[in-house]
């Protein structure tokens, strides 16, 4: 065994030790525990006391520093970051909602404006149409009135003219007959013309 080497170096005391077993540990440990030869160090009970004391001290210090200082601080950092990210996300979300609302309002305004403009155009067109219709009607009635007046005047002129025809004919007849016969009254001529006109 390799562990035998230190025993040989350390001297006679340890040779006794290997011979007598367990009792020896007590004697070596009593010397201050510089060399715990023969005992597997992790199982050497003489080291238990100091190790436990120092472990308790070290772990207590560690636990209190962790629970009072380090962990709350790291937890705080993480919570801060989370709230910051959440806040930013919420702000972004609300901004997006605002944008959406603005777009919707714009669309709505646009639609209303379009509708209104269409209505105005329609109205204007109708107004103009009505105006045109009215004017045309007025012109038409005017024209038809004028046509009627003209017709009546033509009729009158014609009638008058036709009235004159008999007279002219009578005059002509009287003149012709006078030329042919040398005498003819106006009445006779008129009668003859009337008779001729009846045939």
């Amino acid at each position, binding site marked *: 065994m390799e562990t035998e080497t230190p025993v040989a170096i350390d001297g006679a005391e340890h040779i006794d030790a290997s011979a007598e077993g367990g009792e020896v540990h007590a004697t070596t440990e009593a010397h201050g525990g510089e060399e715990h030869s023969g005992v597997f*160090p992790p199982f050497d009970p003489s080291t238990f006391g100091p*190790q436990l004391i120092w472990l308790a001290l*070290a772990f207590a210090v560690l636990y209190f520093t962790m629970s009072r200082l*380090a962990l709350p601080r790291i937890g705080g*950092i993480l919570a801060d970051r989370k709230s910051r990210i959440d806040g930013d996300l919420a702000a972004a979300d609300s901004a997006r909602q605002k944008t959406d609302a603005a777009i919707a309002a714009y669309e709505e305004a646009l639609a209303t404006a379009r509708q209104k403009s269409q209505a105005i155009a329609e109205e204007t067109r109708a107004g103009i149409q009505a105006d045109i219709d009215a004017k045309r009607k007025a012109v038409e009635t005017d024209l038809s009135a004028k046509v009627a007046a003209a017709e009546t005047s033509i009729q009158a002129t014609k009638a008058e003219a036709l009235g004159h025809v008999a007279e002219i004919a009578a005059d002509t007849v009287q003149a012709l007959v006078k030329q042919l016969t040398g005498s003819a009254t106006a009445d006779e001529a008129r009668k003859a013309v009337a008779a001729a006109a009846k045939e």
Partner: protein
Amino acid sequence: MADPNKVDPIHQFAITDVFSTGEGGFAFTNSALFMVLTVGLIIIYLVGSTAGRSLIPGRAQVVSELLYDFVANMVRGAAGTEGMKFFPFVFSLFMFVLVANMFGMIPFFFTVTSHIIVTFALAMLVFVVVIAYGFYRNGFKFLKLFVPAGVPAYVLPIVVPIEIVSFLSRPISLSVRLFANILAGHITLKVFAGFIVSLGSLGALGFLGASLPLIMTVAITALEFLVAALQAYVFAVLTSMYINDAIHPSH
């Protein structure tokens, strides 16, 4: 030790006084020194890296935050939100075991967790906390822990003793698991490293042969880093689960 050709794989676990306080229990040994160093490193790192409380963390602060989140999620996952009361406790245990194990990976450093008394003390602390809080919170209903729900009455005489024994063996399994893993790993590492020295001193052929244990030593070192982190994790997870038992004894 004195003879460099004789490698003693046990020597690394020896407890020696750093400074002697004479006869008595308060000797400041290398074990105590590394406990203090472990705690000191944890405190300095966690407190120092978070001193800025930066909204956008630097590298050091990110590590602290990751450790926090890691253990917080572990505790919340195993013991629920109510278990977060024990978060500082589990976090302290995890960090202590982790940093002590990692210190052990540095050559010539003492490994605090390679001593059964240290791991057993930590395990007993967990055990006592679980029992004390279990009775404090649930009263005698805590004993329901030993009576699994939905088990027919005629099986109970067999099940209850098994549950009690498994409960009582928890501090032993918890402490021995950590202690044995670290101890065995360090001894294996030392033995293989010793082979390099022994074979290397045999001349040219031995020099060639020494490359095999050298490769093994490198591989085992990597494995030991894994074990060091894993055992700290296992210790903390089991602690969280035991705390869950104290909070919700009827399973």
